[in-house]
């Protein structure tokens, strides 16, 4: 199973991609995906607590479970700047 992860503004610049495919396992939450991304891209670490998260274009909390094919968005606070 996998999800599509969309990244915006500062996070897009840190990761160097607008979108990527990310593998998930049964029971994974959006928080699990963020944790994995932070390990792979440590530059995201300082932003971990202020990220806005969405699944299929709806804001969600980090404990929301994901399903195969979901569109995950990881976003800085809105109206925020790009570093």
């Amino acid at each position, binding site marked *: 199973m996998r999800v599509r992860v969309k990244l*915006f503004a500062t996070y897009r610049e840190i990761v160097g991609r607008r979108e990527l495919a990310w593998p998930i396992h049964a029971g994974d939450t959006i928080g699990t995906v963020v944790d994995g991304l932070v390990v792979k891209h440590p530059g995201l670490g300082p932003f971990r607590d202020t990220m806005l998260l969405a699944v299929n274009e709806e804001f969600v909390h980090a404990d929301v479970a994901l399903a195969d094919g979901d569109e995950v968005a990881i976003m800085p606070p*809105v*109206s925020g*700047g790009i570093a």
Partner: protein
Amino acid sequence: MIAVQRGRIDIAAVVDSVRRQDAGAVVLFLGTVRADPGVAALDYEVYRPMAIRRMTDLVDRAKAKFGVLDVSIVHRLGRVPVGGDSVAIACSAPHRKEAFAACGWAMDEVKRIVPIWKAEAVKAPKAARRPRRSGA
């Protein structure tokens, strides 16, 4: 009218989109790019489908909360130069009080929940002038 667009905002079209026979007031808000020191333009990045969804939802909430008749929101995407309009919000209502209140609230909500980010495009530093040779 709800839109996220690269092109210039047609202000008259935004205002006309909320005109109604039962409206006694139309309020228009324009967000414009301010000439802060060194800033030549702002670059707007948008998560478009979610932005459209959030704006549609907040228009419905504005109607329920303030009793306004119609609300239009148009936001720019990409580069907007200093002095340009980055967002236009128009609200129509039977009376001005609700129209003013709804327009201010809608702009606050756009900045709070609509996934749009801006980055400053800075002015290029002036090229160093070559010293003139005397007598040239």
